[in-house]
C-alpha cells in the first residue's frame, strides 16, 4: 500500500517538470509579457518600463530579452529551494496568492461532485430498475439536455434567474455581513452562496455518470450472483442495493479522479460568469497578463490535484472492491522507478539540448518557432484535408451500411434529420440567408422578428416603426407591409467562393433600403440574426467535423501503433497522452491560444489555428482508447495470419485493424464532436476565438451578453445562437447513442 502510494507520488515529478516546462515555453512564445498593460498607459514613462523589465528579469543586462531556459532554470533552481517565485502583479509569493483562492475552488469542486453523485446515482439506479419505462426515457432526455447545454450559457441563465427572483445571491461567496455572523451562520451563508455555482458546474457531469450507472446496473442485474442472492430468498431491496449497486458503482469511483481535472476547466468559466472568487478567476487573469510564476504554480497545483484525485479514487476502489489489489496490475498506472528515472533524464536531456542549441546559435529558436508556427498552420490545413478525406471515406463506407438502420429508429431519424437541416443551412448559407453576414441596418437595431402574413396575393412582411428609442421597441406600422418574394435578385456574391449567384432564396421586394425581413430579429447594428446564424454555422458546425477528423487520425496512428507494437513506443506515447490529459483542457487551450495566435491573422488563419489547438488537446483521449482496442485486435488470429504472410505493419494496421475499429471510430467521432463545438463557443465567448467580421455561434452569444439588457429587455432572439448550439449538441449526442446501439449493443456501458 505505502509503496504504491509512494510510487504514484513519484510519477508526479516528471509530470510536474513537463507541465511547467511546457507552460514556460508557451509563455515565452506568446507575444507580450507582464508589463504589457503598463506600456499601454500613456502616463507611465518608457524609462520606468525599461527599468522594471530589468528588475523583473525580463531582459538581461544588455537589454536583450532573457531566454526562456534561463528563466526556467532560474525558476527551477528556486523551486528546489522551496521558493516558487513571486507574482509580478501582486508582489507576493505565488503560494500565498494561490492559497488565498484555492480553498474556494476546492470546495466548489467537491460540492459539485457530491451534487452530481447524489443526482446521478439514484437516477441511474432508478432508470435501470425501471428500464424502458417512461421514467427511463424522460431521465435519458434530461441527461441529454444537461450534457448539451454549454456551462457558460447555463451560468448566465443562473445569474439572470438569481437577479430576477431574488431567491439566490447573484454571485459571490458570502454575504456582506457574514464576518459578524456566528460560525454556524457563516457556514449556512456559505452553503447558500454555493448552491447555484454547484448546480451549474455539476450538471454537466451528471449525464455521463448517470448513463454509466444505468448501464452497469443493468449489466450486473443479470449476473449469476444476483440469481444466487435471489434464490437464497433475500428481499429484492437487499439484492439491488447490497449486491448490484456495490458492484455497479465501481466505474464511477475511478471516474472520480478525472472529474477533478475537468471540473477545474469548468470552474474557470463558471467562476468568471458567476463571480465566484476562486482559482479559476486568478489563473485566467494570470494567463492573460502573463504572470508567469502564478500560471506555473497553478498548473502544478492542478496536476497534483489530479494525481492525488486518481490516487484517492484507486484507494477508494480497492476499499470498495476487495478484488482489486493496488500492487497488482489492476492499479497499473504507476510507473516502475527505473523508467521514471529514464523519463526524468530524457526531459533534462531535452532541456540541455535546447540550451546547447540556443547557446551555439542564439537566434535559431525564434526563427524556428516562427517557422514552426506558420508551418504548423499550413501543414495543419493540409493534414486536416487529408484527415477529412480519410474519415469521410470511412463514414461513407459505414453510412451506406448504417443509414437505413438509423432512420428506422425514431430517435435516429430525428437527430439525423436535425443535423441534416443544420448542415444544409450552413453549407448553402450564401443562398439561403436573406442578407450578407455583415449587412447593417442601423435604424433597426434590436428589431424583433418580423411578422409574415398572407395578403394581396402573396406573402407579405409587416413593416415596423420605432416606438421608444430608449429601449429600441418597435410597433407594427398600420397597413404598411412589403411583399416577401422567393428567388429575389441581390447584389453579386459567390457560393463557396466560386459559384456566382445573383439571387437569394427569399427577401423583401421593396425600394426602401431599410425594409428587411427578420426571421429571428436583428442585433445591435441591425444585422439579421437568422442570416448570421446560417453564416456562423459554417464555422461552428465545421470546426467539430474537421477537428474530430484530425483528432481521430492522430489518435488512430498513435494509438494504433502503440497498441500494435507495444514496447517503448507504446510506453512513451502513452506517457505523452497521460501528460496531455493531466492538464485541465481549458488552461491548455488558453495557453496554446496565446502562443499560437499571431497578430494580424486573417479570419481563415484564426479558424485554422483554433481547429489545430482543439485537435492538439483532443487527440490524447482518442489515442488512449484506440490503443486499448488495437491491443486486443492485434492478438486476434487474422492479424497473426497477416503477419505470418509477411505483410508490413502499416499495411496490417490499415487493412485489418482499421476496418475493425471503424465503427467504433464513427461512434466516438459522433460523441466527440459536441466537445469541439462547445470548446469553440467557450473560446469565442471569452473573446479569444473567432472575432469580427467573421461570425460564429459562440461569438454571437458573447456579443449578445455584452450587457444584461438582452435578458432584461427581452431581446430573446439574440440568444438563439445558444439554442442553436444546444440543439446541435443534443442531436450529435442522440445520434451517437443510436449509432452505438446499432454498432455494438454491448458498448453501451462505456
Amino acid at each position: 500500500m505505502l509503496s504504491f502510494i509512494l510510487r504514484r507520488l513519484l510519477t508526479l515529478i516528471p509530470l510536474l517538470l513537463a507541465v511547467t516546462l511546457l507552460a514556460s515555453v508557451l509563455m515565452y512564445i506568446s507575444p507580450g509579457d507582464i508589463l504589457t498593460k503598463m506600456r499601454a498607459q500613456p502616463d507611465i514613462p518608457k524609462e520606468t518600463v525599461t527599468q522594471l523589465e530589468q528588475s523583473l528579469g525580463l531582459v538581461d543586462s544588455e537589454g536583450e530579452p532573457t531566454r526562456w531556459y534561463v528563466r526556467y532554470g532560474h525558476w527551477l533552481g528556486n523551486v528546489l529551494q522551496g521558493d516558487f517565485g513571486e507574482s509580478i502583479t501582486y508582489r507576493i509569493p505565488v503560494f500565498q496568492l494561490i492559497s488565498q483562492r484555492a480553498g474556494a475552488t476546492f470546495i466548489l469542486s467537491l460540492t459539485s461532485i457530491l451534487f452530481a453523485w447524489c443526482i446521478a446515482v439514484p437516477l441511474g439506479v432508478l432508470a435501470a430498475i425501471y428500464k424502458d419505462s417512461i421514467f427511463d426515457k424522460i431521465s435519458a432526455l434530461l441527461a441529454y439536455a444537461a450534457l448539451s447545454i454549454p456551462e457558460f450559457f447555463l451560468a448566465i441563465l443562473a445569474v439572470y434567474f438569481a437577479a430576477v427572483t431574488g431567491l439566490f445571491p447573484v454571485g459571490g461567496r458570502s454575504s456582506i455581513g457574514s464576518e459578524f455572523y456566528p460560525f454556524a451562520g457563516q457556514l449556512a451563508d456559505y452553503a447558500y452562496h454555493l448552491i447555484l455555482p454547484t448546480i451549474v458546474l455539476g450538471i454537466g457531469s451528471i449525464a455521463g455518470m448517470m448513463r454509466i450507472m444505468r448501464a452497469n446496473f443493468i449489466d450486473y442485474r443479470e449476473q449469476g450472483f444476483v440469481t444466487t442472492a435471489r434464490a437464497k430468498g433475500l428481499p429484492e431491496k437487499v439484492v439491488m442495493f447490497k449486491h448490484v449497486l456495490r458492484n455497479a458503482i465501481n466505474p464511477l469511483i475511478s471516474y472520480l479522479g478525472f472529474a477533478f481535472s475537468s471540473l477545474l476547466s469548468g470552474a474557470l468559466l463558471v467562476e468568471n460568469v458567476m463571480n465566484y472568487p476562486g482559482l479559476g478567476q486568478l489563473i485566467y487573469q494570470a494567463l492573460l497578463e502573463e504572470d508567469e510564476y502564478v500560471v506555473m504554480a497553478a498548473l502544478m497545483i492542478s496536476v497534483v490535484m489530479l494525481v492525488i484525485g486518481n490516487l484517492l479514487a484507486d484507494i477508494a476502489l480497492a476499499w470498495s472492491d476487495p478484488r482489486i489489489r493496488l500492487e497488482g496490475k489492476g492499479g497499473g498506472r504507476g510507473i516502475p522507478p527505473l523508467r521514471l528515472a529514464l523519463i526524468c533524464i530524457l526531459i533534462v536531456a531535452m532541456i540541455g539540448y535546447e540550451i546547447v542549441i540556443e547557446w551555439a546559435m542564439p537566434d535559431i529558436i525564434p526563427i524556428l518557432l516562427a517557422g514552426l508556427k506558420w508551418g504548423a498552420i499550413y501543414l495543419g490545413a493540409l493534414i486536416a484535408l487529408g484527415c477529412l478525406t480519410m474519415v469521410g471515406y470511412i463514414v461513407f463506407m459505414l453510412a451506406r451500411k448504417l443509414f437505413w438502420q438509423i432512420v428506422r429508429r425514431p430517435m435516429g431519424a430525428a437527430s439525423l434529420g436535425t443535423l441534416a437541416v443544420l448542415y444544409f443551412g450552413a453549407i448553402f448559407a450564401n443562398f439561403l440567408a436573406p442578407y450578407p453576414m455583415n449587412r447593417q441596418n442601423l435604424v433597426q437595431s434590436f428589431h424583433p422578428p418580423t411578422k409574415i402574413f398572407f395578403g394581396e396575393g402573396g406573402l407579405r412582411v409587416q413593416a415596423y416603426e420605432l416606438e421608444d428609442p430608449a429601449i429600441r421597441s418597435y410597433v407594427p406600422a398600420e397597413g404598411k407591409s412589403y411583399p416577401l418574394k422567393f428567388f429575389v435578385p441581390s447584389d453579386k456574391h459567390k457560393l463557396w467562393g466560386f459559384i456566382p449567384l445573383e439571387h437569394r432564396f427569399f427577401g423583401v421586394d421593396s425600394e426602401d433600403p431599410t425594409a428587411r425581413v427578420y426571421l429571428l430579429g436583428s442585433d445591435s447594428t441591425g444585422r439579421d440574426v437568422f442570416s448570421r446564424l446560417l453564416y456562423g454555422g459554417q464555422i461552428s458546425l465545421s470546426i467539430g467535423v474537421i477537428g474530430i477528423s484530425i483528432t481521430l487520425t492522430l489518435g488512430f496512428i498513435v494509438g494504433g501503433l502503440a497498441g500494435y507494437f507495444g514496447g517503448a513506443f507504446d510506453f512513451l506515447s502513452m506517457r505523452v497522452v497521460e501528460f496531455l490529459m493531466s492538464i485541465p483542457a481549458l488552461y491548455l487551450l488558453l495557453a496554446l491560444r496565446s502562443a499560437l495566435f499571431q497578430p494580424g491573422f486573417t479570419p481563415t488563419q484564426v479558424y485554422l489555428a483554433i481547429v489545430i489547438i482543439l485537435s492538439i488537446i483532443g487527440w490524447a483521449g482518442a489515442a488512449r482508447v484506440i490503443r486499448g482496442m488495437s491491443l486486443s485486435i492485434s492478438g486476434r488470429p487474422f492479424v497473426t495470419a497477416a503477419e505470418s504472410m509477411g505483410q508490413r505493419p502499416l499495411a496490417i494496421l490499415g487493412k485489418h485493424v482499421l476496418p475493425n475499429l471503424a465503427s467504433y471510430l464513427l461512434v466516438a467521432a459522433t460523441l466527440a464532436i459536441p466537445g469541439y463545438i462547445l470548446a469553440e463557443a467557450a473560446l469565442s465567448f471569452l473573446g479569444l476565438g473567432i472575432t469580427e467580421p467573421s461570425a460564429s455561434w459562440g461569438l454571437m452569444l458573447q456579443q449578445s451578453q455584452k450587457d444584461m439588457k438582452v435578458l432584461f429587455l427581452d431581446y430573446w432572439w439574440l440568444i438563439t445562437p445558444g439554442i442553436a448550439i444546444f440543439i446541435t449538441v443534443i442531436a450529435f449526442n442522440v445520434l451517437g447513442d443510436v449509432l452505438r446501439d446499432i454498432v455494438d449493443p454491448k458498448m453501451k456501458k462505456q
Partner: protein
Amino acid sequence: MKAPFRIVSALGLLLALAGCAEPPAVKREQAPLPKDVEIVQGIEIGQYGGMFILSETTQPTTFNYYVPSNMGTVSILGQMFNTLVDFNPIKMEIVPALAKSWEVGEDQQTYTFHLREGIRWADGEPFSADDVVFTFGVVLADETDPETGETTPLYPTRYYSELHIDGKKIEFEKLDDFTVRFRTPTVYAPFMYDMMSVPILPKHKLQPYHEKRDFMRAWTTQTAIDTPSEIVGTGPFVLESYRPGERLILTPNPHYWKADESGQRLPYIDRLIYKFVTESNTEVVYFATGQTSASAVGPSDVAWVKDNEETYDFTLYERGLSPYVTMIWLNLNPGKSDEGKPYLAPHKLRWFSNKLFRQALLYAFDREAVIDAVFFGRGQPLDSFVSPPYGKWHNENIKKYRYAPEKARALLRQAEFTWDDDGRLLDPDGKRVEFDLMLPSGGSWEEMVVTFKENLDAIGITVNLNPVDFTTMLRKIDYTFDYDAGVIGWGSNSAAYDPSGSKAFYLSEGIYHIWHPKQKKPATEWEARIDQLFNEQEQILDLQERQARMHEVQNILAEEAPMILLASTFSTVGMQNRWRNIMMPSAGSPIWNIEMLWTPEPVTD
C-alpha cells in the same frame, strides 16, 4: 446521500438568519478634533451609521500607492490617503486638503504649503512636514551608477518622471513642522495638478522599508489580509478587512480631519464596502436589484435599470458626456525601418497625408446612427480631443463633421480620386483604396468600428479589420510603425483636467503623438504650430490664456483631422435614495464626497 438534506437544512437555517444580516454598528471613539480641523459648510447634518456598498471590477493588487497598479486599487486607496490639495468636481477648482493654504512666490516657481496642524494618522501618530518630505523623498529617490554616471530611480514609478520638469527634479524642503516649500526648475503651470496626484504616506510606518530599499514590497495584499491595521493613512477611512475576490471593508478613520458644523467628526457612514465582481454586467445587475448603493450604468442598460427605480428606491442621475475619448487614427509616419523598408506603403502614405482624404473619411462615417442603434441615442459624436466635460478647456466652436457621404465623395473627387465600374475607389494612380485597421481585441468600440468599415465600403473604400492583442498594437505604435490604421481609447474618467497630462500626445516629439511619434522636428506646419502653442501654455500661469491656446490647438486638430474621433456616451450614475448630501458631479467619481453621505435609515431589511 445526505447532501440533499444538508442543503435543505442549510436553507432553513438561512431563513432563520435573514433577520440578522446587518453587521454591528461601529463604536466611534471621541478623539479630540485636530486644531486645524476642516468644518464642512453647507451640508445637512447627519447621523452615524449605515453601509455604503460599491462594486469594483478590478482587484487591488497592492496597498502601496506607489506600486504600479490599476484603477480599482487607486480608487480604493483614494479613500484611505490624502494629497496636499484636492479637486472639487462641483466647483471645478483646487481646494485645500492636507495643506490648509498655499502661496505662489514672486518668481512663479516657488510654492509654499502650510499644513494643517494637529492631524493624526489613523494609528494616532502625529502628522507633520516630515511625512511630506519623506513621501517626496521616496518617490524621487534615485541612485547614480559610479561608473557610467547614469541615474536611475530607486523605485520606478510614473511619479518619478512626473515630478521632473525638463529633466530636472522638483525641489522641496521642510521650513518648519507644518510648512513645506517646493520649487519648480522653470515656470510650470500644471504643478498644482501634480500635487493632487501624490498622496502623502506615513514616515513612521514606511521608513524601515525605504532604508532597506524595499519600499515596493511594503503594504502588499497579504499585509491587508493579515494585518489591515498596519496600513494607516489620513483619509476618511481605514481598512477593516480584505477578502481577495470577495470584498474589502473600510471603516471610519477615528482621526479624520473633517467635521460637520455641529462638531461631529466625519465620515457619517459606518462601513464602505467594495464588492468585487468579474464583469460589468454583474455590476449593473447588483445595483439594479438593490445590492449596491451606487453604480455607473451603461447607456443601453439605462432603460431597464430605470424600471427598477421604484422597487429598489434609487435614482439614475444623467450626467454629461463621459470624458473618455476613443478614436481611429491613420499612420502618417513617413520613415523607413533599419532595412530601408518604408513603415507604410508609399501609396497609402500619399492617401493618408492628404488632408482631403482624411476629412472625407470623417464625412463618410455615420457616427450618429451607431449611437442611436447601439447606445440607444445616449451619446454624441466627438469633435474635439478635449471632450466637453472638461469645461472651459473644451472648444465649442470647432469644425464639426457629420455624416454626409456626398461631401465625402466631393472631397475625394477634389483630391483626384476616381471610382471604377464596381464602385470601388481608385487613387490618382489608379490603385484601389484598401487599408487594414487594427483593433485591440475585446474593445467596447467593436460596433463603431464595424460600422466604420461598412460605411467606407459604401463609398468604395475597403477596410480590413485586423484584431490584434494590445501588446502587439503597442509594439506597432511605439517601435515598428508597420501598420495602416488603428483604434484606441484614451484618457481617464476624472473631472480634473490639465493638458500637461497629455504632453506626449500633443508634441510632435512626443512618444504618444500617435500618428507620427518621436519626430526629430515637426513634419508639418500644423504640427509645428501645435508644438508652439502647447509649449507656450505650459509656461503661463493664467488659466484663461492657457485655455485660449488649447482652443487653438483643438481648432487645428479638427481641421487637419489626423484622427477620427468616435463617440462619447452620456454617463449615467445610479444612487440609492436613502443617502443624503449627494452632490453629483458632471464627471468623475459620484462619491467624491463620501465622507459627507449619511442615511436616516442606517439599517435596511
